[in-house]
């Protein structure tokens, strides 16, 4: 019964972990603004966690540079299953204007399965909330499938 309670509450309050994979900081700033009182994603249960081991949702920003590729993959591996990977902005989805650069290893979907893409450069905070809500639904399905 205690286990069930934990599962119930983690489903309702997914914790975020934010990875900057060479972002220009535009998306990073918007992600932080999602958690400010104005947009207040915390009222939906989202909470930024300090370590990937506590996270449920991984938000990746930036075009995944060669330097960051290993770190991104290692960090994502540390997130326990079921996990949901959200790309924020155009960069991790395609490389955006950095596409074709020798320093870019992305897009992220070459390396891991990406669950939700939030398009925009940068996305509006409302769009990020949309994406996170979508990620929560996917997370719930994944959790159900794991049982």
């Amino acid at each position, binding site marked *: 019964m205690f286990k069930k309670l934990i599962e119930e509450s983690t489903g309702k309050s997914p914790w975020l972990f934010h990875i900057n994979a060479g972002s220009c900081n535009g998306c990073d700033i918007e992600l932080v603004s999602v958690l400010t009182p*104005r*947009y207040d994603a915390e*009222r939906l249960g989202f909470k930024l966690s300090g370590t990937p081991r506590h996270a449920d949702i991984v938000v990746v920003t930036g075009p995944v540079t060669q330097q960051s590729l290993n770190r991104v993959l290692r960090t994502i591996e540390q997130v326990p299953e079921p996990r949901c990977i959200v790309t924020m902005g155009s960069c991790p989805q395609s490389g955006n204007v950095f596409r074709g650069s020798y320093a870019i290893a992305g897009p992220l979907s070459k390396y891991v399965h990406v669950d939700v893409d*939030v398009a925009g450069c940068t996305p509006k905070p*409302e*769009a990020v909330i*949309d994406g996170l809500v979508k990620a929560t639904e996917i997370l719930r399905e994944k959790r159900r499938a794991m049982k």
Partner: protein
Amino acid sequence: MDFPFVKEAISSLFQKSSCDMYPVKPSEAAPNYRGRIVFHPDKCINCMMCERVCSGNAITHTSEQTPEGERITRTFYLGSCTFCATCMDFCGHGAIEFTRDYHMIATKEEDLMVSGTFLKKPPVKKPKPAAPAAPKAEAKPAVAAGTVIKPRDDGKPVQVPSKCVYCTICAKKCPAGALTVDRAAKTWTLDEDSCVGCGTCAEACPKKAILMPGDEPVTVEAAAPAAPKAEAKPAPAAAPATIGREDGKPVQDPDKCVYCTICAKKCPAGALEVDRAAKTWKLDEDSCVACGTCESVCPKKAIVCGVQDAPAAPAPKAEEKPAAPAAAPVEAPKADEKPAEPLKPRDDGRPLQDPSKCVYCTICAKKCPVGALEVDRAAKTWKLDEDLCIGCGTCAASCPKQAILY
């Protein structure tokens, strides 16, 4: 004990939340927000400008040949888009639109694709060039003297055959590849379907032989170009009274020429070949468009375009004048070249043209940082926009003839 925030905390309990309550209460983006792209395939003419200017390579197209024509599908991948709207700005036909829809959440890549298909019909007949009878072999005689060539209403260019020298610069500059110019056959053909009416051809034309909407209609004069190559260039001091050629092409003065190759580098048509070592100066008659650039850039004034007075005359002329008007106003500080002239620099720090010296080379207009000068080589006009001029003196400094008082 003092509780600092108790009062504020209690009063805030009864106030409205400062939170936006987004998913519950829908929120609209700002009026000029650039969100999801909407593509109108019916307006697209496949000029490809959007694909060329897209920095994120987000725009692609596939084409398929069908009996009715070319079926083109243009796709915008929002996952690679920076939403800079440059494609929209470059689209001359308004086929790309940015909406305020920011809900671009996708679980599959296809969700971020915006595409549209349209049919590009093959040209039914050979596209009729704008100017009458231009594609005929002898274009110039085909247009009777006195014919008025008017700009078109649909925003597309019109050629003025009497001015056109078939230099092909317009065809090279056309972003849509809509112009075909054949130097040998003297034809200028516009592909009506490809032309986006951007006006690049008219801007690039060194002879102002292309009319765009808003231009003045041109009356064709009795065609007298391509005069027989009159004085051949290796005739340095041959012409006693006048020098230069009637067709406006450059003539080199071997005495003055230092073979610095500047003229060859600046020639927009690449018609000049100068060899510093061998001391040769060669003009490719076919390439030369007689634009006069070589004359204006020559630091030694060793090139003459068009018929001019004999070399002995112009230089001393300027010095003769000052004797007569004795007013002798204070001269421009740097203008040591002319001691006195009826013209005196303006008090307000703006430039003044000396028409006797000005050769209407347009260098001052090009150098003007605020675009306040308008110089027409053909019409020999020099106009200053008093409102725009900031009195910086760049024009005077750049004038190769010291024809600007400042």
